[in-house]
Each structure stands twice: as C-alpha cells, then as structure tokens.
C-alpha cells in the first residue's frame, strides 16, 4: 500500500465566471522511503500539486489518500490536524516566525499537537542536533544565515514524525554551495527512512532525487527513476 496516492486528481479555480483548470487529472503513487522530485516550469501546476499533497487544499475531483486516510473532502480544521501529524513543510522563504528564537520555531508543530512543554524541548533539541544546529537554539530567527534558516525549517519539519517531508523550492533563495548543504541533509534523512517530496523548477536540484516526475500544463509528462542520481558527500 503506497504511503501517498493521488488518484485522478483535478483542480479548478473559479474567480467569478472565469474558470481555470490547474490540474487536469493527476495520478501518482509514492511509497514510504522514496525521495521524489516534482519538476516543471512555472504555471505547470506543480504548486497546486504541492498544495494538494500538503493537505492545504482539496482536489476538485479525484482522491488523495495519505497514510491510509482519504483526505480529499476534509474541512479545513481537519486538514490542519492532518498537516500537523503527517506533513513536514519546508518552504522557499519566510519559513520561520520573525523575532522568535530557533527553539520556539522548532517546537511550533508540537505546540499545536498538544505536546507538554518539557517534552517539546527535548524533541526539538534532538531535531536541531540532527541538522547540526543545537548551538544556535536560542538565537533569534533574524540572527542566522539563509542556509541555517532552511536547516531550522527542516528540523521543525521532523518534530511530529510526519509521513512525508514536503519541500517547496527549498534552495530557491540560496547560493550553490549552501543549496548543496541543504540537499545533503534531505538525502541523509532519506537514508534514515524518511519519505521526501521536493518541488523544484531546477533540473540540477531534481538530479539529487531518486525519482523524477515532470509536470506540464496540469498533467504529468514523465514519471521515472533517476538514472543520473548523484549522492552528495
């Protein structure tokens, strides 16, 4: 049983009388432990796919089955619960709460999950250790570098032990060297068994994933294992 299943998913946006079909029927199966890149030009529907995969939005038709649960028609408050327990987000920018310490950023999902304060700190510290940033625990979010911000976001994405880590252009604002450092962390997590889905428009970033899905005009073009997979040392 795959961990994620998109079954013939469509998404239509309506503004007044104007209708725009962003996704025209997408079907994808992702198993636990995979590292998948979804690549496409802007306007291809990859953002919409990310929104649906991330339980931020409902498909107009079709089904989305996440970790055995059909989340296709869930109302917003239930989607929030699903996001909290099943999804770890890493965004391109504005990942962290401004003027807030690194630690308080990482504990955020735990707070909304109702975890006790003492346990939260323990779990968050472990996650920060995993990305090598425990010494920056009490720094404010505006006192760390761009690459460090992304690593903190990755630590946060781990704390609730989600089914998937969903990264939307995580290296979009970073230079080449820092980008590779960040992707390396994703690869390490994948080696430890985490399922990673990475949305990008850059082919060289997608090259570091084990499976590449290309999207164009709201439909999947190709969906193949990456023959040129390169692991970062």
């Amino acid at each position, binding site marked *: 049983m795959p961990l994620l299943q998109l079954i013939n998913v469509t998404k239509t946006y309506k503004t007044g009388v104007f209708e725009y079909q962003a996704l025209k029927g997408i079907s994808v199966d992702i198993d636990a432990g995979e590292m998948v890149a979804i690549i496409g030009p802007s306007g291809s529907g990859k953002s919409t796919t990310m929104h649906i995969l991330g339980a*931020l939005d409902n498909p107009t038709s079709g089904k989305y089955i996440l970790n055995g649960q059909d989340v296709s028609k869930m109302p*917003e*408050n239930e989607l*929030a619960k699903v*996001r909290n327990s099943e999804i770890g987000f890493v965004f391109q920018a*504005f990942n962290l*709460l401004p003027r807030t310490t690194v630690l308080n950023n990482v504990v*955020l999902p735990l*707070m*909304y999950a109702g975890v006790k304060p003492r346990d939260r700190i323990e779990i968050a510290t472990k996650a920060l250790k995993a990305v090598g940033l425990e010494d920056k625990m009490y720094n404010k979010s505006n006192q760390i570098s761009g690459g460090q911000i992304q690593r903190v976001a990755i630590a946060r994405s781990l704390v609730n032990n989600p089914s998937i880590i969903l990264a939307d252009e995580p290296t979009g604002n970073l230079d080449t060297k820092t980008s590779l450092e960040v992707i390396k962390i994703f690869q390490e997590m994948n080696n430890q068994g985490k399922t990673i889905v990475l949305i990008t428009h850059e082919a060289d970033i997608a090259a570091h994933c084990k499976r590449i899905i290309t999207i164009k005009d709201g439909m999947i073009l190709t969906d193949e294992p990456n023959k040129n997979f390169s692991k970062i040392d």
Partner: protein
Amino acid sequence: MTLLELIQTALAGLLANKTRTGLTMLGIVIGIASVITLLAIGQGSQDSIKQSVSNLGSNLLTISAGSQRTGLVQGGAGTATSLTLADVTAIQDYAKSGNITGVSPEFSRNTQVVAGSNNTNVSITGAVPDYATVHNYQIQSGSFITSDQNTSRAKVAVIGPDTATNLFGENSSPVGQEIKINKIVFKVIGVTVAKGSSGFQNPDDVIMVPLITAQKTVFGQDNLRSIVVQVKNAETMTQVQDDLTSLLLTKHKITDPAKADFTIRNSADTLSTLSSVTSIFTTLLAGIASISLLVGGIGIMNIMIVTVTERTREIGLRKAVGAQNNAILSQFLVEAIVMTTLGGIIGVTLGFAISFGLQTFANLSVSVSWTSVLLSTGVSVLVGLIFGIYPAMQAAKLSPIDALKYE
C-alpha cells in the same frame, strides 16, 4: 496551547513593537485614568458633604411652622404662629421615653448688631441650652446659654469665631465685652469652636441669645421658627418622626394630616437629596469619560486589523504546521485583551496618582473606591474582547495558501 502560553505568546507579540503597543494602549490608559479620577472626585465630594452635614448635627428632625414647602430652601422667619412653647413641653414629655437626646426650640431673625465701631447685619438666633447639643457646638471660651438665663431673659450672647473676628477684629477675646443688638446692650458670654463652612450656611458666623430674650425683649414675637429634635439612634428616626407628627396633630387639634400647620424634615432626607445630586453628577462625568474608552477600543481594533494584515504570512505558516482556526483566533484575541488589560492596570495606577495629586496639591477631597478599580479592570478586559474579536476572526478565516503567498 494553555492559557498561560497564549498570554506569553501575546506578550511576546506586543513587546515586538513597543512603540505601537504603547500608543495603542494610550487610549485605554487615558480612558480608565479619567474614569477613576472623576469617580474619586465625585465620591470625595459626596463624603465631604456628608461630613459637613454631620458637622451641623446628625440625626436631626426639624419641625417648622407652616405648611409643606418644597425644596431645600428654608423660608425666612414666617409669621406662622403654629409652634408654641406648649408644643415644646409636650415634646420634652415625649423625650422622657429615651429616644431623643435634645430638644431645641429656635427663633431667628436678622437685625443690626453694633460692637465698638463695627456695624453689621447678622442673624440672631434665640436658643436654649440644648441648642449646643443638637447642633454640635462646642465652646472655646466662656460658656453657653443656661436655662436660668433663658427664664430670666438675660441679655447675654454667645458668638461664633467668624462673628468675633468681624465685630472685634482678629485674635480678640470678646468674652465680657458688650454688643448692641437692635440697639439693646448685650454682654458676650461665650465664643464657639470653629466648625468650618459647608457652603450653604456658615455655622461660625452666628450670634445666639436666650430664646425668651430674643422673643420678648428683642423682637416682641411669640412664635418659634422651628423646634429641632435630635434623635438618639438613626434607626429610630422614622419612628420618632411619625410619633411627633401624631403628637403635634393632636395638640393642634387637626384630624387631617394633609392640613397640618407644621412640617417635620428629616436631616437624613436632606443628606440623601444632596447625595443623589452629586451622585448623578458624578455618574454623568464618568459616563463622558467612558466615551474615551470607546474611542480607545476603536483604536485597538484598528491596530489589530493592521497587525493581522502584517502577520498574514505568519498566520499562513502557523496554519501550515497545524494551527486550527480556533488557535489563531485565540492568539489574536488574547493579544488584544492583554493589551487592553495592561492599559487598564496602568490607567488605574495613573488614576490613583492623579487623585492623590489633586488631594495633596489642589486640596480636593478624593476617595478612590475598590469598586471603581475592579469595575475599570473588568471593563478594560471587556473592551479588549469586544474590539479584538473582529480582527481575530479575520485572522482565523485566512486560507493557508493565500496567507503563505501574501507579499
């Protein structure tokens, strides 16, 4: 999130922009401070009125000749002859029952008084010894009128300290000196202790002579202006008032109480009328001050709407990691309430400070009540709730996708 955490998060949010928070709170601070101060001044003046009225004598029933008059104003010495010394005797008999601590028949009229080269027109009061008890006068030099002096129509006078100054100059000792009342020579036998003016009458500017002397010798009249009775206990005042009413109706052979030729006024009623007037005034002022609270609340709502807009991305992030609508609503609502409550507390403190400042430097009597403090704190919490709910609801309704995309 527990309530404590909500409050901590709210405080963190507010401290992030101290200037904005401070300016927004200012409306509440000023509103609450004004309400506290105005209520304190109002309560203070009510207290000082009570004090002044008690100074003139407490638990008093004033029996006046003539039919019912409305209002607080006592008419001048009327020509009504309905109260006589026989009435006084009857009341003194009744007094043996123990309910009454003083019976003071009185007569007064204005006339010319001359002392040395000073000439003034002043009110002369014909009084008996009980007058001092009933009206709470003490003697600072000399002595008060005695019963013998009354019966023998002695030409003696007891004067108030302000009258002493007016007639004999500052730091004088009037006892033993002579004054001419209506061209008749009187000897000053006593000066009263100052009581302080309450505004409507000056109890320190008086001349008292024996009652019968005033009636027969000075003015050639037989009637009494009033009989003032001091009741022992405040609780029995209504009872005594009723008793005396029946007693006098019987004595005057009147069967219909509506046709009574006298009135009995209860000092408690006077006090309560005065109190209610000041109380209405105070409430009005406090009400006006509350308008600034309304304005302050609107300011809070305005700033919270701006804050929500500014933190749209933050809201999107929180929702993405699992915050449900209620969590976002609580976060912003608590922020508004914390802001107004803090403003309220600062306002109360400021109100206290201003009140005591007025008392110390402007000699205004103030009385800050704990009720007004609790009320104000409660109101400031309420203001935060009412004016914070709309922006908080707007925040909660944001769609995570739109919020995340917001520039």
